[in-house]
């Protein structure tokens, strides 16, 4: 396996690592994979997950690029003065331009975790070279909408957590001995009571509020959405996206959940499960991407 450090973009300000299987450097029958930053973490990804994923996909024959967007990791901050979301699209397109020029590849699969998942959708909506996306624990909502829902989302994930531990003796022992986080429990109970008293309903969202729904409605491309059980992204999906996905015409995205894990897959077994989930999906979709 070959790993090369690269520096690219208009001002040579973006830093990335390109991974290829040895001897398959010029295989252009497959699209290339581009991994986008998860939050403010640099290109190695949470718990070095991007490195593991890049190497596994490269072993199969994919060219994989993981890079730092402007202002993240080792890449310079852009001097263009444009909105951050817009800059992310520009940077990812620069990564695609680079691979097109150097590797002669013009189709791309984008993969992102958390805010990285949101970026995959933004770029796919704007660039037809994207032929598939994998969003891991993405929210796919405007920040203002997400903020307005934060109380519901928090109550939802806390409710799931308490229901899951209802029959767990250790949890009850912690509660009785005063070691539980009482503030969290109180917040959950208070929010639930408020909902009942005010007969509040969850905020009504439209299809157009969710970037992923907008993408799926307008473009037909393979999409994998992965959620971890312990991520509030899963609650957001249930509250906003799940029902509306069923109403979509055309191919539906594949939804996978990974149990017993947190938002960034911090335990090794959950990282391994995520790796297998992504790999299996790509293998299933491979035929649709190969140029004969």
């Amino acid at each position, binding site marked *: 396996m070959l790993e090369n450090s*690269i520096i690219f973009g208009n001002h040579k300000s973006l830093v990335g690592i390109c991974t290829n299987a040895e001897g398959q450097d010029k295989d252009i029958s497959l699209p290339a994979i581009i991994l986008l930053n998860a939050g*403010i973490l640099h*290109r190695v990804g949470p718990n070095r997950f991007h*490195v593991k994923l890049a190497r596994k996909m490269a072993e199969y024959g994919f060219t994989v690029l993981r890079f730092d967007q402007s202002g993240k990791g080792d890449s310079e901050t852009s001097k263009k003065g444009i909105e951050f979301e817009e800059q992310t699209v520009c940077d990812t397109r620069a990564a695609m331009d680079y691979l097109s020029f150097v590797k002669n590849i013009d189709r791309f699969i984008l993969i992102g975790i958390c805010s990285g998942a949101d970026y995959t959708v933004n770029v796919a909506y704007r660039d037809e070279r994207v032929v598939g996306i994998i969003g891991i624990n993405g929210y796919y909502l405007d920040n203002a909408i997400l903020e307005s829902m934060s109380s519901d989302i928090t109550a939802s994930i806390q409710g799931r957590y308490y229901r899951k531990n209802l029959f767990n003796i250790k949890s009850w022992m912690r509660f009785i001995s005063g070691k539980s986080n009482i503030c969290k429990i109180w917040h959950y109970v208070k929010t639930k009571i408020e909902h009942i008293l005010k007969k509040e309903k969850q905020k009504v969202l439209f299809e157009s509020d969710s970037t992923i729904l907008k993408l799926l409605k307008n473009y037909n491309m393979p999409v994998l959405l992965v959620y971890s059980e*312990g991520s509030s992204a899963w609650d957001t999906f249930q509250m906003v996206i799940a029902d509306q996905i069923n109403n979509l015409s055309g191919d539906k995205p594949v939804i996978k959940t990974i149990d*017993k894990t*947190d938002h960034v*897959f*911090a335990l090794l*077994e959950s990282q391994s499960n995520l790796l297998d989930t992504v790999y299996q999906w790509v293998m299933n979709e491979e035929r649709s991407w190969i140029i004969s």
Partner: protein
Amino acid sequence: MIEPLYFGKEPKLLFGIYYPPRHNNNIDAAIVFCSPIGQEYMRSHRTFLHLVKTLALNGLHVLKFDYYGCGDSAGKCEEGNIDQWILDILEAIDELKEGSGAKQLYLIGLRLGATLALLASNRRSDVDGIVLWEPIVSGINYIDELRKTHHQWLNGSFSKNMSKHNNEDEEEILGFPLTNALKSQLRAIDLLTGVYVLPANTLLIESSTNKKDIDCFRQYLNEQNEACEYVNIPAPQIWVKGNGESKAIVPLRIVQYISEWLTSKQRAC
């Protein structure tokens, strides 16, 4: 312009980024950064980057690199070990000295990186100075501390039921494996029993307020007649996962202090 590069020998290639001096102010010194490991590496990356850029702006040659099995370097996480990482630091020193032509060489390390930097500096005579930022004094205490943080973080997480990884043979800490080989090497680390020769310029930084180990280490160095400058700059423990503070925090006072200390050493030369 910065220069990302792979260096060292196949198959243990190391990834690094060379930051050249941003302007020439007749400083002829180069700095190798020695990162912590595991989740602490992830959490401190942003701070290190800030420090690297500050030093390059001050006219220093800087190399930030990843140990074998860490970050962007070759190898799997479980292949990393103390002996290898010390060799990696020595390799990085050679790479930077050759590439920059700088005559003076300094090491900056945080947490286990500081300890590794100290151990590496004792294997060669061309290290002019070293910055030890919260070094790990006792490997045994370090493992205990990591385990405690890991369990605290698991408590209240959806991941807590996956406890099969918490046995002694197959242990993991905050997303990274802690192999038996690494554990036994860590347990052997005790800066209070070895004989260390400190470089001419040594700065010991304590940033937490309750670190008995660092006090003992200072006392030990005094007993050994090894002189080092010491400073306590209270700052958030940026390397700790789940302490409720943002990952984006950079302890600017410490960055500033290190930068000024290094510049003053250059002026003295």
